[in-house]
């Protein structure tokens, strides 16, 4: 590649990072210049990502499934840490480029959405810088050709997540997530933005250090971080990093440690608790980072290392524990989070739980892929990633709709909405489409992607049947909570909150006035100062509704195209891609032979949807009365509402003991045991000196007497020694 086209895959992630920095400079010329720079950087990056499908240098790779490791800049070798023989590089292959496109385009739509959503906020320079910086790091993560560079992007997105969750760092109560006063096991369950950001950072960090240990263990034998080199080493000799690690019993541990990184980033059990509280950030951030892109990084990671592990051994038994772990954690998390989404009243939290749950499905897909490698690795792999793509699209759409709803109603609670389908037509239809996709109702994209995961679990058989069953139950719950959410927002009578807004013609001009009931009431009492807008329940500005209606349209388009050609083509592309990783199973979705799992799951989803319909759309079934009247149901409700008490247990187990323990150790050990040495040592010296000082009497006679005594003693000693 003599020309400089080899720069393009690098520029895909460099442009947004550079654009972010440039937007800070552009801010000097005013807010508009800054916004334009930030959004254009994101658009350029998306266009560059798409060009990888068409440019002659890359199309042969991206469209046929071959892997291109670009390690040159304008033909010159790209070095990074020359002394350690580490090179910078990007991978161009179907997996990276498909994901890069999803990331870049969804990011661009959300950047456009931000123009409207964040309008009038303060500190927007910081916001746009971090958003662009995030996009660049996410693309770096996706396109890296080695672990170390991937880790850079990995932590980079983690930092942006932390900083953007805590964007409103003044921590006023209206920005809090959770209902103030809520607590379980004496642990408060409402958090300020900076608290939530810190929680997210530290919790994902726990996964990240596992990840780092995992890659360094591999590095200890392979001496490389590069994926392609790692793969080539497997075939270079039978004594390679995988067999060496296996011989000291560290192969599966290292694989699971790397998966630990995925667990943290993708909010899987047991490190899932940070994501619901991450909703304290602006909704555009939730859409971008905590729904569409960053949280999927863990799935991407499993998809990157999974084929390597499969290629490492000829027998399945070596890698089986790893894939079983992935699948089991995925299925369990899908169920765990779905139960919590059923009972939450905060709109964004429902969506957050559902993100955790959907990512669980993806993990299930990738996990079951490895349970019967020869028969259906390609199938599970494709299903997992297809669901990643479709979830990224519809979940981003859901969040963007939610952002507008929260803004226009001035409340983050669904119970303070209701009956909005006439007032907000565009938002209603968009959210209905993406919602049905989440509920996996055909023909929307979510149906095809999720059901192929369930079909893959069914095909894998064996232990996977249990996971398949768990996945089926979760589809029922998913459909139920989706209809509950849609029903609470768009059907039924308008809540008191909305009636007040309607009658006063007071909308919130601040899109971020997510107020708790108490402050809403206070605001109502003091008039409309907080809600300075003149309009009532009005439709979103164009910069906001266009992005989410586009996503709704894409969801429909994918849903229509999936059964005709899209799903099969994607499967064939990934299938040939995996051939280059030495995995030669055949992509095998067949709508007829997989009819059983698909129809089972659809039936359950329809049952869930019907219950939701009765309870929240037709409102002929009063579920809240039913739950409260039954002590068993009510304790279940509380159990789910308090997140299975896991959140509180973590605080009691880790946060509080460390905080209290550090103070205890400081007060009882450092100050009581170590510190006194400093005080005691000099005072010991002082005591010795005060004794010795007594003989310094200053009286001549005594000195002469002591002198004589000393002479006499010396003579005796010498005489004694002399005798010997």
């Amino acid at each position, binding site marked *: 590649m003599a020309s400089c086209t080899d720069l393009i895959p690098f520029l895909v992630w460099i442009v947004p990072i550079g654009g972010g920095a440039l937007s800070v400079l552009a801010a000097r010329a005013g807010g508009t210049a800054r916004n334009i720079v930030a959004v254009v950087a994101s658009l350029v990056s998306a266009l560059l990502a798409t060009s990888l499908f068409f440019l002659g240098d890359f199309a042969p790779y991206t469209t046929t499934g071959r892997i291109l490791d670009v390690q040159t800049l304008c033909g010159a070798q790209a070095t990074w840490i020359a*002394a*350690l023989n580490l090179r910078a590089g990007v991978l161009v292959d179907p997996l990276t480029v498909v994901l890069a496109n999803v990331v870049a385009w969804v990011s661009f739509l959300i950047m456009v959405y931000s123009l409207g959503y964040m309008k009038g906020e303060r500190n927007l320079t910081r916001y746009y810088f971090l958003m662009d910086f995030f996009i660049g790091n996410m693309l770096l993560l996706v396109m890296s050709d080695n672990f170390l560079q991937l880790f850079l992007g990995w932590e980079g997105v983690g930092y942006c997540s932390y900083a953007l969750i805590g964007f409103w760092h003044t921590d006023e109560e209206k920005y809090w997530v959770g209902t103030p006063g809520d607590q379980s096991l004496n642990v408060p369950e409402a958090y300020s933005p900076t608290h939530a950001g810190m929680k997210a950072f530290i919790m994902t960090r726990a996964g990240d250090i596992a990840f780092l240990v995992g890659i360094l263990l591999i590095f200890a034998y392979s001496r490389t971080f590069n994926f392609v080199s790692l793969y080539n080493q497997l075939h270079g000799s039978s004594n390679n990093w995988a067999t060496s*690690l296996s011989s*000291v019993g560290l192969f599966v541990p290292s694989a699971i440690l790397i998966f630990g990184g995925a667990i943290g980033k993708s909010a899987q059990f047991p490190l899932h608790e940070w994501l619901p509280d991450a909703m304290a950030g602006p909704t555009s951030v939730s859409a971008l980072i905590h729904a569409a892109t960053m949280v999927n990084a863990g799935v991407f990671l499993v998809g990157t290392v999974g084929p390597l592990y499969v290629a490492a051994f000829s027998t399945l038994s070596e890698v089986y524990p790893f894939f079983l772990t992935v699948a089991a954690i995925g299925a369990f998390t899908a169920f765990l989070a779905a139960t919590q989404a059923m009972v939450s009243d905060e709109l964004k939290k429902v969506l957050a739980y559902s993100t955790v749950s959907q990512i669980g499905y993806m993990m299930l897909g990738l996990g079951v892929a490895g349970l019967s490698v020869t028969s259906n690795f390609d199938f599970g792999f494709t299903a997992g990633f297809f669901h990643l793509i479709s979830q990224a699209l519809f979940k981003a759409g859901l969040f963007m709709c939610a952002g507008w709803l929260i803004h226009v109603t001035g409340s983050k609670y669904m119970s303070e909405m209701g009956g909005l389908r006439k007032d907000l037509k565009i938002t209603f239809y968009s959210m209905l489409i993406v919602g049905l996709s989440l509920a996996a109702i055909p023909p929307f994209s979510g149906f095809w992607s999720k059901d192929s995961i369930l079909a893959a679990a069914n095909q894998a058989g064996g232990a996977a049947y249990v996971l398949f069953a768990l996945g089926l139950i979760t589809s029922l719950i998913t459909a139920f909570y989706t209809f509950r959410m849609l029903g609470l927002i768009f059907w039924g009578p308008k809540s008191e909150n909305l009636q007040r807004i309607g009658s006063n013609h007071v909308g919130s001009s601040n899109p971020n006035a997510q107020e708790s009931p108490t402050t809403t009431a206070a605001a109502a009492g003091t008039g409309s100062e907080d809600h300075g807008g003149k309009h009532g329940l009005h439709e979103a500005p164009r910069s906001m509704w266009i992005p989410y209606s586009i996503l709704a349209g894409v969801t429909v388009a994918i849903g229509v195209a999936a059964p005709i050609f899209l799903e099969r083509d994607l499967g064939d592309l990934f299938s040939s891609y995996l051939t280059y990783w030495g995995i030669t199973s055949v992509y095998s979705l067949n709508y007829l032979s997989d009819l059983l799992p698909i129809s089972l799951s659809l039936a359950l989803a329809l049952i869930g949807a019907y219950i939701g319909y009765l309870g929240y759309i037709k409102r002929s079934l009063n579920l809240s009365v039913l739950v409260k009247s039954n002590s068993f149901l009510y304790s279940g409700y509380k159990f789910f509402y308090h997140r299975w008490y896991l959140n509180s247990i973590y605080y009691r187990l880790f946060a509080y003991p460390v905080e209290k323990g550090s103070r205890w*150790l400081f007060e009882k050990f450092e100050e009581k045991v170590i510190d006194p040495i400093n005080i005691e040592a000099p005072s010991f010296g002082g005591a010795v000196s005060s004794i010795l000082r007594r003989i310094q009497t200053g009286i001549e006679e005594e000195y002469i007497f002591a002198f004589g005594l000393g002479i006499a003693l010396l003579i005796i000693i010498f005489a004694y020694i002399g005798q010997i």
Partner: protein
Amino acid sequence: MVYALLLQAIIIPIIAAPIAYYVARTMGSRAAAWFSFAVLLYSTIALLYSTTIGNPVYELYPWFPHQLSSGTSTLSTIGNFGLYIDGISAPFSITIYIICTAAALYSLPYMRHRISEQERESTFATIQRDGGTFSETEAEQERGERESPRLRSRFGLYFALFLLYSAGMVGTVLSTNLIELYFFFEFMLIPSYFLIAEFGYGSRGRISFMYLLWTHIGALLMLLSFLAIGTVGNNFVFLGSGALHAPSLGNLLPWVIFGIVVGLFVKLAAVGLHIWLPYAHAEAPTPISALLSPAMIGIGGYIIIRMFTLLLPEAYPEIGLGIAIWGVLTMFYGGIMALAQDDIKRLFAYSSVSQMGYIIFGIGTTTQHGIEGAVFQFVSHGTAKGILFMVAGIIIVQAGGLRSIKGMGGLSQRLPITATCAMIGFLGLMGFPETNGFQSEWLIFSGGLQQGSSGAGPLSNYWLLVSILAVISTIVTAAYSLWTMKRVFFGRLPESLSQVKEGSWYMLAPVIFLAAVTILLGVLPGLIDNYLVPTASTLTPPLLP
């Protein structure tokens, strides 16, 4: 020996020290600050330039070449005065001078604040009697006009000591001779003692004396070991031509190693020997804290690396494991102590204890990666902690001496630049990628895990456990870093701080510069690695690759 660059880098600040005093007396504090800055900048550039000449660069000067006694006497000579810069000493010495250079400018507004504060304290009675107010003198100080001769001489003293201190630190790192090393080691102690005793906070007399005693006792232990090595090996030169190599110390070896390890662990503030550090670093004037903590204490690590490669004929996994465990204990202990602090400077002091644990751990791994990581960690910690202490100083100056974290909050609204730099500093501490902290930490952990995955018997399993614990300790670092960030810069701004403004550029520019270096080295670690790795890979004894 082109232009005697290394000698210049050390001698010029020493010669300039009395001149700085004179400049301060005649031309005032600002001139003295710029003068010190220029001197240190020149020395920094001299060192940087010398690294481009070659690796290593070696200068030798006649010092004590004559035989002490004739005949069969054991001790023939102390040897020559050499200066040696290679991939190991360059990152240490250059980092020290860079931080010193930045701190020289930073000192100007800070010491104005501090010295006038001290003057007020000492003349409190006088002023009260005369019915005067403080603000007159302070306003004068702010403008830097018409400083009284007394103030000027205080500044003169400060900058003279500052230059001597800087030169002492770099001299230690460039030494090639055990006696020369000891000479410089004490040479950096004395000025720093006076800096704390004269300009420190709290009971500065007692604390500076404690600092002097602890490090002096450590140095004496080290000296005993040096004398043993020199007399047995009949040579005090440990680097460069005619250097000792693995002197056969026999039964003395464990004692010599004990002396060196314990003596220098006092300097490194390994847990158990750390107690002087929180006092000294918290109560020193802040620019000096920014030298003590990032620059000085890590020198202990440098000497240990040199001594181990000198003394031990082969890799030292058993001793190494012990050291690594000590390192991990230090990481956790320092980190947990930092969580419990309310005084921001004391918090950073404990965080330094914790960070020294990483250097100790890296040395303990006895692998190339571990040693490289330990050296790199000195640089990373230097920039990060340099930033953080300077940030603490900015808050102290701008918020009227405020040090208690309880009294802070929401300061990022008033100090956005400072807050951004503090964030970068904390990210560096946490070993966050895209800052240099990660580039050092992954090397250190890689070294440990290499030992841990070698599958060589039970020792390997211990290594695995210890290494994983070391990695886990980064969570503690993240916890105190983010929590401090939250308590200082986020949340509600107290009424009392609503008028706080960003400090002068004398303070901000050095911090921004160090923040830029932090990120630059995080993205392009090759700037250090490409110089460091070739040296580390040729160390004797040969280490695991």
